[in-house]
C-alpha cells in the first residue's frame, strides 16, 4: 500500500515538474486567484486558472466580441484586485470605460493604448508583457502568426504577467503558442421570470487548453461574480491521445 502511495507521490511530483517546464506555475499560492470560476478549475492543469500565460479569445461576431470583453473584464477585475494596472491595446477600440466598473474594475486604472497598425499592437503588447509592474495586458488584434505569438508567450514566461489576445473576426484561426483558446458567446439573460432584460448570460467554451480538459460552461454575471448555470454546462469528452490537437494546442 505504501508502495502505491509513494508511486503516486512520485507521479504527482513528476507531473508538477513537467508543468513547470511547460511554463505553468503550479503550487505557487501567490498565483492562485479566485475568479469565481470554480466549475472550470477541473479543466485547468493544476486545478487553477493559469495566470502568467497567454490566453487567446476568438470572437466571430460583434455580439461575441462584446461578450468576450465582458468575460475578460471579469477576469482582469480579479487580477487587478491588489491595485494593479492593466494595459488595453487595440487598433479600433470600442470599450466604454464606465461599463468596466460593472465588472469590478476601476476604469481609471486601465490605460488604453490606441495605435493605428496591428504591427504596433504586437510591438506594444510585447513591450507591455515584459513589464512586471502590470497586472494584465489585453491586446485586441485580428491576425497573428505562430512565431509572433511565441514571442509573446516567451515574454510572459519571464515576467509572469497574464496576457490576453482577443481576436475579433480573424481571417484564419491558426495554431498559436497560447495556453488556451476561448470562445465566448452571449446567452439569453437570466430573468427569473421577470420582465425586461436580466443579468447577462455567457456561454464559455474552452476550445483548447494545454494539459487540461476542454469543455463548455454557461455562466451568468450577477452581483459582481460569475455564477454557473449547472444544468446547461457540460464537459467535452476527454479526447483520445491520438488526437493531435491536444499536443499542439
Amino acid at each position, binding site marked *: 500500500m505504501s508502495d502505491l502511495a509513494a508511486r503516486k507521490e512520485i507521479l504527482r511530483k513528476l507531473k508538477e515538474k513537467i508543468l513547470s517546464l511547460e511554463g505553468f506555475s503550479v503550487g505557487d499560492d501567490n498565483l492562485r486567484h479566485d475568479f469565481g470560476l470554480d466549475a472550470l478549475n477541473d479543466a485547468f492543469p493544476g486545478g487553477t486558472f493559469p495566470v502568467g500565460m497567454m490566453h487567446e479569445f476568438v470572437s466571430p461576431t460583434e*455580439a461575441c466580441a*462584446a461578450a468576450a*470583453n465582458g468575460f475578460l473584464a471579469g477576469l482582469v477585475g480579479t487580477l487587478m484586485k491588489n*491595485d494593479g494596472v492593466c494595459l488595453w491595446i487595440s487598433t479600433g477600440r*470600442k*470599450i466604454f470605460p464606465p461599463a468596466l466598473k460593472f465588472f469590478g474594475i476601476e476604469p481609471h486604472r486601465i490605460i488604453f493604448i490606441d495605435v493605428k497598425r496591428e504591427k504596433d499592437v504586437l510591438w506594444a503588447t510585447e*513591450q507591455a508583457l515584459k*513589464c512586471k509592474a502590470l497586472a494584465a495586458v489585453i491586446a485586441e488584434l485580428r491576425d497573428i502568426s505562430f512565431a509572433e505569438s511565441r514571442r509573446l508567450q516567451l515574454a510572459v514566461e519571464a515576467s509572469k504577467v497574464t496576457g490576453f489576445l482577443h481576436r475579433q473576426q480573424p481571417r484564419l484561426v491558426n495554431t498559436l503558442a497560447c495556453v488556451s483558446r476561448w470562445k465566448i458567446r*452571449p446567452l439569453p439573460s437570466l430573468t427569473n421570470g421577470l420582465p425586461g*432584460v436580466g443579468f447577462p448570460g455567457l456561454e464559455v467554451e474552452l476550445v483548447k487548453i494545454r494539459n487540461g480538459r476542454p469543455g463548455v460552461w454557461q455562466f451568468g454575471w450577477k452581483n459582481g461574480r460569475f455564477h454557473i448555470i449547472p444544468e446547461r454546462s457540460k464537459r467535452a469528452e476527454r479526447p483520445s491521445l491520438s488526437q493531435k490537437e491536444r499536443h499542439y494546442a
Partner: protein
Amino acid sequence: MPKRYLYLWFRYLATDRLTKITPELRDRPFLLYAPEHGRMLVRATSPRLTHEGIWPGMVVADVRAIFPEVEVFPEDVAADEKLLKNLAEWCLRYTPVVATDAPDGLILDISGCPHLWGGERPYLETIVTRLQKGGYDVRVAIADTVGSAWAVARYGKCKTIVESGKQAEALFSLPPAALRLDNSTLQRLEKLGFRQIGQIANIPRLNLRRRFGDALLIRLEQALGTAPEFLQAIQSAPVYEERLRCVDPIRTAPGIEIALKRLLESLCERLSYEGKGMRTGIFKGYRIDGETVQISIGTNRASRNAAHLFKLFELKIPELEPALGIELFILEATLVEDVNETQEALWRTATRNQTAISELLDNIAGKVGMQVVHRYLPQEHHWPEHSVKEVGSLDEQPETEWLTSHPRPIHLLPKPEPIEVMVRLPDYPPVHFRYKGEIIHIVRADGPERIEQEWWLRTGPPRDYYRVEDPTGARYWLFRLGLYDNRTPQWFLHGYFV
C-alpha cells in the same frame, strides 16, 4: 553710489504691434478702439493720426467724420501686456533689474551697468537704436529717480540724461502732469494756476498736504529722490539648458550618444537638485555648415532618470544628420514639472511600479506617438459621450465616483449608427430593427432611459435609450433621438452590452 534709472516709454506700443504684424499699415492712418458706455472710444492712434490731432478718448464716429479714410481695429489689451512683458524680458540683456510700468513703459535699474557699454550716452543710444530697428517708437531718459526719469521721458526732451543730483532742475520746468498724479489733483492744480512743478516745490509742505493730500507730496518727493520708491522687477523663467562644445566636430552616432549622455547627466543632476523633472526635451546639434538639427522627446510623467531619458532620445538619434560634423550640442528641457518625491499614491502601488509603468508608456509613446496613450476619469455628465474625460497625466485621480446606477454598454460605437425600426406604439421599445441589412428581432427590452441634452452646454432633442435583447442573447443599446411629435424620430444603435 547713487542709483540710476532708465525709463523707456513706448509711445505707440499698441499701434506699433499692429504695424509689425501688417507692415503696409505703416503710413496709413488707423486707430484702435474699445466699447465704452455703448459707444466706441479711441484707445490708441497711429503716429500719423496723432499728428493730425486725434487723441485717445475721442469717439470713433467723430474721427470717421474728420478722416473718412481712417482704418479701425479692436483693442487687444492682453496682447499689449504680453508684448510689454516680452520687451521687459528682452531688456534683461542690459540690466538684471527690469520692471514693467503698465500700460506702455519699462523701468530699468541701470546702476552699475552703463560702463560696460562705455558710459551712459552710448548705453542709451544702443538701447534706443536696437528698439527703433525693431520697429518701436520709444522715448527714453536717464535720471537718479524713477519719478524724474518718468517725467523727463514723457514730458522732457527725448534721450535726456539728467546728471546725478540734478533732477530738481530738470523737473522744475515740467508740467505737474509729469508727477504721475491722478486726474482730480491735476485739475485742481490747473485751476489754481500751477503750470510748472517748480511753482509747487516752493510752497511749504504743510499747506500742500492740507490742500492736496499725501499723494502729491509722496510723488514730488519720489521724483526728487527724498522718498524711496520700490520696483517690482520681473522674474524671468529659469531656463533648463545644458551646452557642450566640441573641440573637433562630431560625426558619428557613438560620439553623439556620448555627448547626449553627458548633457543628460548634468541636466538631470540640476533637475533633481531643484526637485523637478523633464516632460519635454529638445536635443539640438549645431553643425559646422551653419545648419541646426534637432530631436525632441516627451514623457508621460516628469522624469529625471538620465538612463530612461537617454533611451527615449536614443530611438531618434538616427534622425540627426551630422553631415560635416556637429560642433555644439544643446540639451534643453522645454517643459519642466515638479516631481513629488514623497508621493506613493498612484493607485497605492509601490513607487517602483509607477516608475516602471510610466517608463513603459514613454517607450510606447516614443515609438508610436504621444497621442496613443489614453486614460479616462469620470465626468459628471449623463450624456454618454461626455461621461468620461481624458487625462494626460498618470497621477490624476478621479474626483467623483464611477456611476453604476444605470447600465452602460461595454462596447460603445464611436458614432451612433442609424437603424430602421418597427415600433408598436410610441414610447415602446422596437419589435425588430434592421442594422446593416440584417433584421434583428427583439424578445426582451428595458427602458426607456431618457437622457436630456444639458441646456447650459448645448441644446437639441433628448435621447430615449432602450436595452434590448435578441433571441440569441446579443444585447444592444438603442436610442430614439427626439420625441414622436410632428415627424418620425430617428433611431440609432449606440452600443453592445455583455
